């Protein structure tokens, strides 16, 4: 009888310890998950800022200003434009 009791006690202690460890493990993993989620949010923030930057840099007003002033580009007038017809008339349609 006493042997069975000792064995049960040992199992009980083992179970209790494993519960403690797994509980600890789960909290540790959860903290890690939290960290990753925070990192994800930070990336999302950065994505938003990059989107903003992209659309600010890419606004037609700015592109045109640079093209005209820095690159000295200009729109060709009709007199300097040639329209080339493709052999297949269908090919020119959009």
């Amino acid at each position, binding site marked *: 009888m006493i042997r069975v009791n000792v064995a049960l006690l040992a199992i009980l202690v083992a179970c209790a310890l494993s519960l403690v460890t797994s509980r600890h493990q789960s909290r540790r993993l959860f903290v890690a998950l939290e960290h990753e989620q925070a990192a994800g949010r930070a990336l999302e923030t950065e994505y938003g800022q990059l989107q903003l930057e992209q659309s600010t840099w890419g606004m037609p*007003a700015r592109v*045109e200003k640079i093209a005209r002033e820095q690159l000295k580009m200009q729109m060709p007038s009709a007199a300097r434009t040639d329209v080339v017809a493709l052999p297949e008339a269908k090919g020119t349609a959009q």
Partner: protein
Amino acid sequence: MTAAGVALTGRATRSREAVPLVLPRFRSPLVFGALALLFMVLLARSLYLQWFDNEFLQGQGTARHSRELEVPAHRGRIVDRAGEALALSTPVKSLWAFPDKFDATPEQIAALAAILETTPRKINTRLDANEDFAFIAKQVAPEIAERAMALRIPGLHDQNEYRRFYPGGEVTAQIVGFTGDHDVGQEGIELAQQAWLSGIPGSRRVIINRRSEAVEDVAAIRAPQAGHDLSLAIDARLQYLAFRELKAAIDLNKAKAGGLVILDVKTGEILAMANWPTYNPNSRNKVAPSMMRNRALTDTFEPGSTMKPFTIAAALEAGRVRPDTVIETAPGTLTIGPATIHDAHPEGALTVEQVIQKSSNVGAAKIALSLPSATLWEMFSSAGFGTLPKTGFPGEVSGRLRPAKSWRPIEQATMAYGHGISVNLVQLARAYTMFATDGEVKSATLFKTDGFVAGRPVLHPETARAVRHMLELVTSPGGTAPRAQVPGYRVAGKTGTAHKVEGRGYGNKYVASFVGFAPVSNPRLVVAVMLDEPSAGQYYGGIVAAPVFSSVTGSALRMLGVPTDAPLNNVILPPEGSEIREET
């Protein structure tokens, strides 16, 4: 041990034995009973706390180890038809404090001021302004807020917010609108689509450790719902083009205000809607309400001659005239009762085509008077005048089209050339889709639609084609708007030069307009231009507004890759000084 000590001990022992201890019989049970009772009280109290009145303690316990965290939800972006962002939110932080709990050394305040790029004096002023609550810095970049929080000043707190940015700035300001406090839309699409765009923040309960880090999820109370993105019909490139050309024309002609609308003929989508004056939605410190108005939809004006094609279309539909019917317009005036209608350039006998081409008021009035007023009213009404454009924009107006029963003959005559009726620019552009298609009016929308959209048939195809041909003549050298011509494309349209109503009558201020479409062989775009009070000497629609139409239409068709339908040297301007001018 000494003898005396032994003696002392022996005496004491003896004396205790000498007086035997006799306790009252009830004393021991009484003490026992009292102690037991106290234990019972404790037990009862603990039972009570454990099972019956446990809410308070549970609450307190939870408050010490669990927290409810807000999970932020993004407001949706507003993008143009190509996905280019017109409005988007990025996370920012605001710093605030309870001034009575705020406790910082002068060095800390100096450091805080350095981080926030302000002065210690300004921070102190903010703290002194209100004793309950003070914003130290509103909507700063997250990394700045983190550096400020790293100073560990007691009483300083931060909170997460979103800030809305508008990359399009003044170009798209009136369409997109803006949001106010708490990310709630206040103007434009931001206001109209608040429910679709706004996100609902979620919240969850977590267990925290002593460093206030979440260690375990207890329950998700509410899942966050991010706002939806919204695709507008606007094309950012065309919008910028429209804005640039409109602004150039307003500067050149010293106009007070102006608007430009580009409609897609196939779908009715509004590809561009530019307004002047405008403002920068990203910094709205000095913005007058008049700058915020989307004039193309919220303001009406008397359209003038741009209404004539509808009068002619009504007469053609009714079978009263044919395009080559001759109308006598000499001597250039027509007297109805006490009023007289004038032509700016008196002509003799004109065909119906020429009435449009040369914009004769007398001709249009005579044609209108030959029709029953109900027929004319029906045409104007089915073209969409006097009814809301229903583009999905807040604050749009319907304009004014009085019921036919109340028209007097002079009013019927003036309405034929666009006086006594008021419209907004989008209505005008939308109505012209009936000439650009084979007689169908497309409903105008600000939202992106996919594929072909069927219109509401108003005219017979033959009528639409006949009027389209007349409108093309307007842009020929004999018409009122040769300056509307575009190299490489056939264009059609109509000028308008309307006197503005001032007080009770018409003064010497004008609204110059041009509404047209291109390419005529297979129309793709309707472009409507309106300039309010051009005051640099020129005010005729054909001189002030038509060149804007020409440059916008030419560039827009090229950007959209629409094949040309005319040789590039198709533009023929009349000799200097021989241009035909019109009023109304």
